[in-house]
């Protein structure tokens, strides 16, 4: 099938590529743009390892065609960083609270939590658990993942207050 042009913004950079319509966004990101942060876990829209942000929504990039994202704005784990260019509070939280073991689910977890904290800057433990319910951790390290998201929320709220 003939390739078609797609244009989108990925982590702030304008991207223009040719894709087969059937190319999934996750394969486009990993294989065509060499952004291997988003992982391929289950390929069946269950595990959430491929989670990226598309136009302000968390999506499972294994269940979106790259051509559907044409004209859109994509954020992957590679684009998540702190205000000073260092670690984002979420990344710091996952480090401080031991929010990862094997690390396979981590890019999806952080990208999902990033959107969750935009929508709900001060989530309760129950809200965090519901908010990341589409992301599976095979190490079952959810306890510390939840703590890491709480850590980030507190850090981000403190930064916000300091700025005001």
């Amino acid at each position, binding site marked *: *099938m003939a390739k*078609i042009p797609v244009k989108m913004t990925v982590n702030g950079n304008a991207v223009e590529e040719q894709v*087969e*319509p*059937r190319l*999934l966004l996750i394969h486009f990101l990993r294989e065509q743009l060499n952004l291997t942060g988003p992982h391929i876990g289950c*390929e*069946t*829209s*269950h595990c*959430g390892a491929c*989670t990226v942000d598309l136009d302000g*929504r*968390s*999506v*499972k990039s*294994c*269940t*979106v*065609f790259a*051509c*559907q994202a*044409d004209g859109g704005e994509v954020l992957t784990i590679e684009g998540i960083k702190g205000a000073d260019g260092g670690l984002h509070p979420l990344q710091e939280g996952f480090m401080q609270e031991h929010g990862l073991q094997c690390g396979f689910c981590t890019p999806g977890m952080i990208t*999902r939590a990033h959107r*969750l904290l935009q929508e709900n800057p001060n989530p309760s433990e129950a809200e965090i658990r*519901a*908010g*990341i*319910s*589409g992301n599976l951790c095979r190490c079952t390290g959810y306890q510390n993942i939840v703590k890491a998201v709480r850590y980030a929320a507190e850090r981000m709220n403190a930064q916000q207050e300091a700025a005001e």
Partner: protein
Amino acid sequence: MIPGPFEYHRPGSVDEVIALLGEFGDDGRVIAGGHSLIPMMKLRLAVPDHVIDLRDVGGLDGISEDGGTIVIGAMVTQAEVLASDLLASKCPILAEAAALIADPQVRYLGTVGGNVANGDPGNDMPALMQCLDAAYVLKGPKGEREVAARGFYEAAYFTARGDDELLTSVRIPTPAAGHGSAYEKLKRKTGDYATAAAAAVLSMERGTCTAAAIALTNVADTPLYAEAAGAALVGSTLDEAAVAAAVEAAKAITAPASDLRGPAEYRTYVAGVMVRRAIERAEARATG
């Protein structure tokens, strides 16, 4: 898990979609949120030659109320259902059910139109729409028509929608003020379809049930409107005898498959439990 090849179309209007559907017939499929279609395409259970993306099509969005009817555009997502103040105050059962569909990522993209039009017996919205006596607006080359949700589903993945028609919106008669509703769904884990689920919408007046509707999800190859179950409640005080009669009437019309969610007998039993819980919770929420 690579889908078969297809040609991608992104029309800008409903008329263009209908023209494309007319041209491609069986070989064309519309894609809304894509969370039913893309998994099917990965498994090659669906191999459309043409995929028609609805994302740029105008007029399929928005939730509004128009003279006693709630109108939900086909492209309204489950996340938008959850965030709607109008639905929270006038028809809260939709958000209650939407929260039980899949997970946050899927709900950002999954649409009401796709959920009801696909004909998957596991989908939650169809039984709700039957319970609420909603109508689906279908637009085709010959114009627009409305089909009642209670008459829309023929078999798994077979519906009253013609190949050249697009479901553009869902119209729900605004439930009576003071009504009580509940959606009860047993599922094995987040993201799973129901082992069995039941929706109940009812009205009470001085302790007597004046109207009741019950519908069931995933216990047959279509959603089931349990007309006799609702009728068993009307005129009663929702006493044990009436509730037991409704539960038995609902169980009697189930025909679930035996699968990984359990043997058929178990799923029928669970359907009864879901009906009972839905009635109890709807009653507790009803005022009047």
